């Protein structure tokens, strides 16, 4: 980025856009504005077990590869962030959601997650414009990034109990959520086409754009925004029964640091940048039958990450400081659900990481190749009503962890209940 203050440019662009929005027509008296905020609460409980004494879900966050070697100090700061399910009964985050229009120009959403111990995290808190012309929208605050397809989905709208391992390994269990600004443009074209760019603080990421702490050896991180993303989505018009959306996204983390402080080699820290590219596709079929019978939802994504780092600190061999370390890893998921009977849905998912899974340096001794991990998941969901569902899920994992492989079976039983207004869901 050659411009030293891209955020200022973006801000001034947003301000002039807001001024333009002031020219929007006056409020008509006939239709009252929906000013009343809507509240809803989602309760989510899971019984979990597996064939390796219940440690299998936590292990999915540690599959072999370029993300497995971190220190984990970072994660303890986010007490509410769940790090996998424990054997037995789990109360997952209780989601509390408030949404509403503020005036003719903005609406807002607050999504908080309450852990089983009462800790509160803000998952999303943003205002979004509704008054800009020319198909422009601005979102400000903390929100789920618009990259990919699955990233913006809250756990209560997932088709399976848990996050796919591509997202979980490359972005973190909650995907990419951060504080910043989003600008999207929906041109008035014959086919739905959406372009978006985002600038984020880059402080709140689980896997990419992290900060390591190690005295003065590590350089100061770049000024925020440290995370930039861009995405595009396109959807042809296939009539009432079919819908297809294709997307591509990229994320650039200007400042990524990581600490390697257990195992071989000895403690060292890396500093540099990271980027992520992804493509996604989703297809939905509406059979026209009642209660979801005969409906299909099929989606898939491929994510590819590259980290270009340098050794910034090394406990035992200061001579390697300044050496390059390049990491690459990818992941994908493909999943489908089918409405087999009124209110009953079957789902099948394949998710995998590490087809590309390597570390490269200037000397052969540094190079490493890691193995891939994959999983097959089947789920049956019973939608008792519009507001409650029960889901049973089994998965077979073929995982690579550190220097060994492990195959195991996972079992999940879940309920999800929503109280209060059910808000509208996006595609």
């Amino acid at each position, binding site marked *: 980025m050659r411009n030293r203050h891209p955020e200022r440019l973006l801000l001034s662009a947003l301000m002039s856009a807001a001024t333009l929005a002031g020219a929007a027509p006056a409020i*008509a008296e006939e*239709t009252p504005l929906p000013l009343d905020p809507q509240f809803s609460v989602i309760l989510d409980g899971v019984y979990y077990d597996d064939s390796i004494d219940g440690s299998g879900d936590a292990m999915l966050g540690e599959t072999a590869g370029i993300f497995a070697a971190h220190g984990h100090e970072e994660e303890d700061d986010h007490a509410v962030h769940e790090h996998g399910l424990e054997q037995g009964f789990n109360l997952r985050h209780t989601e509390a959601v408030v949404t509403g229009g503020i005036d003719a120009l903005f609406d807002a959403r607050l999504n908080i997650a309450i852990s089983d111990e009462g800790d509160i995290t803000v998952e999303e808190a943003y205002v979004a414009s509704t008054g800009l012309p020319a*198909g422009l929208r601005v979102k400000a605050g903390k929100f789920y990034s618009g990259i990919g397809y699955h990233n913006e989905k809250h756990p209560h709208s997932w088709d399976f109990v848990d996050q796919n391992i591509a997202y979980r390994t490359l972005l973190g269990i909650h995907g990419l959520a951060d504080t910043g600004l989003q600008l999207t443009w*929906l041109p008035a074209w014959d086919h739905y086409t959406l372009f978006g760019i985002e600038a984020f603080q880059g402080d709140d990421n689980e896997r990419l754009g992290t900060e390591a702490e190690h005295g003065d050896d590590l350089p100061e991180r770049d000024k925020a925004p440290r995370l930039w993303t861009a995405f595009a989505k396109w959807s042809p018009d296939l009539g009432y029964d079919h819908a297809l959306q294709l997307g591509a996204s990229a994320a650039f983390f200007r400042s990524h640091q990581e600490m390697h402080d257990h195992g071989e080699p000895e403690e060292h820290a890396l500093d540099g940048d990271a980027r992520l590219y992804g493509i996604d596709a989703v297809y939905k079929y*509406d059979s026209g039958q*009642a209660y979801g019978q005969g409906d299909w939802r099929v989606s898939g994504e491929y994510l590819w990450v590259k980290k270009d780092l340098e050794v910034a600190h090394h406990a035992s061999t200061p001579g390697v400081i300044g050496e390059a370390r390049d990491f690459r890893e990818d992941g994908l998921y493909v999943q489908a659900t089918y409405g087999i009977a009124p209110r009953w849905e079957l789902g099948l998912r394949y998710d995998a990481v590490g087809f590309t899974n390597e570390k490269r340096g200037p000397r052969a001794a540094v190079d490493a190749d890691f193995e891939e991990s994959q999983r097959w998941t089947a789920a049956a969901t019973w939608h008792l009503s519009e507001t409650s569902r029960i889901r049973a899920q089994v998965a077979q994992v073929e995982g690579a962890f550190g220097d060994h492989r492990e195959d195991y079976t996972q079992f999940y039983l879940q309920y999800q209940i929503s109280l209060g207004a059910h808000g509208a869901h996006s595609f």
Partner: protein
Amino acid sequence: MLKRLLILLAALLPATGYAADLRVVATTYTMGAMASAVGGERIDLAVLAPPDRDAHFLQAKPSMMRDLRRADLVVAVGAELEAGWLPAAVKRAANPAIQPGQPGYFEAAGHVDLLDVGGTGTGHVHDTGNPHFNLDPRAMQALLPALAQRLGKLDPAGAADYQANATQAITRIEARLSDWQARTADAPGAVFHHADTRYLMDWLDLPTLGYLEPVPGVPPTARHIQELAESLEGRDGVIIHAPYYPERGPRKLAEALGWPVEQHYTEPQAPTLTAWIEMIDGWVDALAAGQ
């Protein structure tokens, strides 16, 4: 680069401002029928919800946002019928003219005397009133002038045409009322699948003998069907349901009671007043079949 992108965006602004016909997006085929009856040749019409399925359970699809992005007016039913998808689609359409509160956003429910305001206490989607007035001629007659007024506000040059069209549509409906009422005068009432016929039965002053759904939104259970059969034993009636609902429940009840089963959509199969009148004709015939 960003600067260049913004200049490009600014250059595209006037391109979206060209005015041809008024672009109207209706959420359902009934709303489309009323919009086309009033708008006539002056509007381009798109309808978001297909006529052969339940408008509750749609999703905010990209093609809806494509239509809404270019719309001058949205004609919605309101009363939370479209709560599961329209707010998300309208928001994401990034069109300031059609946001709730703007003249480009029209909710029919605001111009109709709603039944069941305050909710039925059964966990159904609606507590702002029952939104299924699409089968009620009185409701159509009430909303047509309001729609004409709104269209006239957005397109003053056509205001007189819209008023004339609305008056004509009201007259066309009025001309059928006494026939519809006469044909159903001795009808014994009906069992329906879902509580979307409230207004129809209220208008014709006929009894609703039961619903196949034990609770709105929950599929019929064997036990509920059996209870219905027991309580209606010895009475005359007819079972009417939309073709997209499962046929097993109605068939079992019909066998138990010896009643006819009729299938009818609750939306006209074309967005025209003629199709809407044909639909009411069909429902009137179905109700009369119970005699």
